[in-house]
């Protein structure tokens, strides 16, 4: 039996580079997500400054197109996705009573590939120009004929690498939830956030390979001179739109479903009531995911698919309103008859409900194809998807972060500042985006770098810009709140809210690296609440105290991602002239790409050859530290 700690425990930076602990990976995701969210937010503010008045020349037309492209791409792929993954990582193993995810190594790999993909994409700003064809990168605008810089290459290859990380994460959470649940936790006893994570992961698994192929095709067109979207040689630009949206529409449900999960947890906890209509919530989540794959072409009503296709996709899209409505009413009736506490987490969750409903109803309006001929590609659409993604997802993420912050860091966030955050953010949000519905309806198309005066657009654009800055203030208050919380010492009870219902609140805050000293026995939905009601103070263990097997830290995921980063960069510049014969030689002969791939494949080989047997935490050690009486 492998004993003792033959394993090297790293300290400082090395600890973070080599960690495979889901709780630390959650923090890494949060940091990286926060970084990219900040970059995307600054891009948003620059966009709003440019649009504050007509015929403004704060940025040039080209810079503006780069800003909108990077704002969209960054926020979707690099801003909100990792924060979702941060919450999943921080919470899912705890909610299902597991000591870690199914594949700790893959978990780390998923994070590092995401990070290096994101860094690669953002490098474009300092390496000749960011992508400028919109986050949808429609061809032929994104082809080398019309987008002359390497911007779109950074987009295709950066997203390819980041997307790989997301796919790995998705598979990992699926496997984790299928196999790692504590004894007694049947599928229909899983907390709602676990359910939505499960469904989201399944959607990731089936949606991301489509964009992988799309990005490969576009990369081949741009770098190898292939003709997928080149009309002269028989290519078809509309094909890109289909592939993009077959991924793109499920992607928006991938984003929003975890927020639904967060809201379900927060509303239920702070109403001190179990979730109303749990089974119908599960059913609605699965139905939304299923329909989410059937409606991609509603982004293409004006592409010219013909009336039959437009009619079918209209109806299919409208149907999504039904399961979504079920969710809204279930939340309202969870609160009905409860005892609601409006702390920051619950304020964000409560603010979510009406805001998301507004985004939802405009979604149904957009689903009607003939009306969409008018809304399409106008500020009405911009308003709609910001209501859903910011008013829905981002409010949900704020709610989740405030709710689980004590669990993740062992410190409370300040409630007073939290309320300031909420009100500045939500008022700023509605100021920014409510007027945009009308801007669209009175004739302002989206993605315009400026507009002529006297079209009736001026005042509403100014209001929108003011609102955007107010949202910025809200985010800054949140950062201040975080900074203040880290001045406080660590030390909170297991269940700092007092009304925790699920397993994560049955262990210390922050949890020890092995999470559960003994795997808990789950006896119903809301496992901890059930024990509390039965008069118990803690969970009944399902196993005796014994040595706990832990995976070893490893630098390989980091190295594999660095390899992909190098390979991607090398591939992009294969046909460039650097004015230096050595550089030209190593790039044009795929040597740089080869080195990168060699690092990645070599790391994979090492991982296969040297099995990780992990290490153990012995029972004596469990009793000495980290466990409260």
């Amino acid at each position: 039996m492998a004993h003792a700690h033959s394993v090297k425990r790293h300290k400082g930076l090395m600890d973070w580079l080599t960690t495979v602990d889901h709780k630390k990976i959650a923090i890494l995701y949060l940091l990286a997500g926060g970084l990219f969210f900040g970059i995307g937010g600054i891009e948003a503010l620059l966009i709003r400054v440019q649009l504050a008045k007509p015929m403004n020349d704060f940025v040039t037309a080209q810079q503006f197109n780069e800003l909108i492209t990077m704002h969209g791409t960054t926020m979707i792929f690099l801003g909100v996705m990792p924060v979702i993954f941060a919450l999943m990582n921080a919470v899912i193993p705890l909610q299902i009573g597991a000591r870690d995810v199914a594949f700790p190594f893959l978990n780390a790999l998923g994070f590092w590939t995401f990070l290096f993909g994101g860094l690669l994409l953002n490098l474009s700003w300092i390496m000749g120009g960011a992508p400028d064809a919109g986050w949808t990168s429609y061809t032929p605008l994104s082809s080398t004929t019309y987008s002359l810089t390497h911007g779109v290459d950074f987009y295709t290859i950066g997203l390819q690498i980041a997307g790989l990380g997301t796919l790995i994460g998705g598979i990992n959470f699926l496997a984790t939830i299928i196999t790692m649940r504590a004894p007694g936790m049947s599928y229909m006893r899983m907390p709602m956030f676990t359910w939505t994570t499960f469904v989201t992961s399944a959607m990731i698994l089936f949606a991301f390979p489509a964009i992988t192929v799309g990005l490969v095709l576009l990369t081949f067109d741009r770098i190898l001179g292939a003709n997928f979207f080149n009309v002269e040689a028989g290519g078809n630009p509309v094909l890109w739109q289909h592939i993009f949206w077959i991924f793109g529409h499920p992607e928006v449900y991938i984003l929003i479903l975890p927020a639904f999960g967060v809201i379900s947890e927060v509303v239920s906890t702070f109403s001190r009531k179990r979730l109303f209509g749990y089974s119908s919530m599960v059913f609605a989540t699965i139905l939304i995911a299923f329909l989410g794959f059937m409606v991609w072409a509603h982004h293409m009503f004006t592409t010219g698919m013909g009336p039959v296709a437009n009619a079918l996709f209209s109806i299919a899209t409208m149907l999504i309103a039904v399961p979504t409505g079920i969710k809204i009413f279930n939340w309202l009736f969870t609160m009905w008859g409860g005892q609601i506490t409006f702390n920051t987490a619950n304020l964000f969750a409560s603010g979510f409900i009406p805001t998301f409903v507004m985004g939802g109803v405009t979604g149904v309006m957009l689903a009607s194809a003939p009306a969409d001929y008018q809304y399409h590609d106008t500020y009405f659409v911009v308003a709609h998807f910001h209501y859903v993604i910011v008013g829905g997802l981002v409010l949900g993420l704020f709610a989740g972060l405030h709710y689980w912050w004590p669990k993740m860091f062992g410190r409370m966030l300040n409630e007073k500042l939290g309320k300031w955050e909420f009100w500045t953010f939500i008022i700023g949000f509605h100021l920014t985006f409510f007027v945009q519905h009308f801007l669209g309806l009175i004739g302002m198309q989206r993605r315009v770098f400026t507009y002529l005066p006297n079209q009736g657009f001026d005042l509403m654009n100014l209001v929108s810009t003011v609102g955007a800055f107010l949202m910025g203030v809200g985010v800054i208050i949140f950062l201040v709140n975080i900074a203040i919380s880290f001045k406080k010492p660590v030390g909170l009870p297991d269940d700092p809210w007092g009304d925790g219902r699920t397993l994560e609140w049955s262990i210390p805050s922050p949890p020890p690296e092995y999470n559960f000293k003994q795997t808990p026995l789950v006896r119903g939905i809301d496992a901890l609440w059930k024990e509390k009601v039965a008069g118990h103070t803690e969970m009944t263990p399902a196993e005796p105290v014994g040595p706990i097997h832990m995976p070893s830290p490893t630098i390989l995921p980091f190295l594999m991602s660095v390899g992909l980063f190098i390979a991607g960069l090398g591939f992009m510049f294969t046909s460039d002239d650097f004015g230096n014969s050595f550089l030209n030689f190593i790039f044009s002969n795929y040597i740089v790409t080869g080195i990168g791939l060699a690092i990645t494949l070599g790391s994979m080989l090492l991982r296969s050859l040297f099995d990780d047997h992990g290490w153990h935490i012995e029972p004596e050690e469990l009793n000495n530290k980290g466990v409260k009486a």
Partner: protein
Amino acid sequence: MMKPWKAVKRLLPLFVGLSLLLSACGREDLSVLRPQGPVAEGQLGLIKLAITIMVAVMLIVFGIAAYVWVKFRRKPGQNEIPKQVEGNFKLEVIWTAIPLVLVIILGVFTVQKVFAFGENYSSDKNAVKVKVTSHLFWWEFSYPDYGVTTAQDLIIPTGKKIALELKTADVLHSFWVPSLAGKTDTNTDGTINNAWFEASKEGVYLGKCAELCGPSHAFMEFKVKAVNQESFDNWVAAMKAPAVLPEEPAVAEVFKTQCLSCHAVGDQGLPVGPNLTGIGSREAIAGILLNAEGEGRPEDGKPIRDNLVDWLKDPQGVKPGNKMPAPKEDLGLTDTEIEAIADYLADYKLTY
């Protein structure tokens, strides 16, 4: 009797409210909310139906939410455990069934309109056929039945169906005249689209490109000018008249060698850039420099000659990323020549 200032005080809020409401509806020639033809009217009808349903839904949700938030706040000292409700079958059926019914209502009207607007009138004898070709960053309109090609201003007769065949010469664009009809994308060869619309009354309507197409996407504007049938016929005749060239031979020479290598006037020149026949009667130069002589919004514009000079002296400054060579830097025209050409073009008007 009220004192006058009191009446003003009372009426002011009403006045402000009304003008706000009107401004929220936008300009008559630009807004989706103020349709000027049957297609846009039908689309607005659907929008209104959807808004009505959605406002009702929102009021119900907001009402329940407000009630719950006020009524079920946790009061100080409230420590008993609230009743843990698993669900309520009846309620859940209700809020599944009602949205379904609402969706079906909206769905029926949607399907009906999808097919109505998807009609192809290109073989209808009474329709005016127009081939729309979008370019970076301008619009080409050709009338196959009349053998006429123009650019930027789409002249149409009122009360007639306009049957469009839309395609692009480069990247994807989207044809949008908010007050007359929703968008149709202009795709590459192989996926050419058809659409139709109609203007009920005479006027100049603003059109825009609605698909990101590059730096000057924002400036890829055009106008639809609806005139009566007689004027339209006159316009076609004027367009077919022999080209008018600059009177002064030196200017004519420069115009022929430098401008007509891409542009066309009447029967002369090449169709690479926008057709310039009768450019003096157009609403704008380069789509965005509005002309004071125009009929749409003359108060926003500058004299056409000044617009032409501005454009010809610095095309990239006016419309970044456009494909026209700079007359001065790239083609070697002098300021005098540019101004002479601007004079000529400003005077090249069509009467119709």
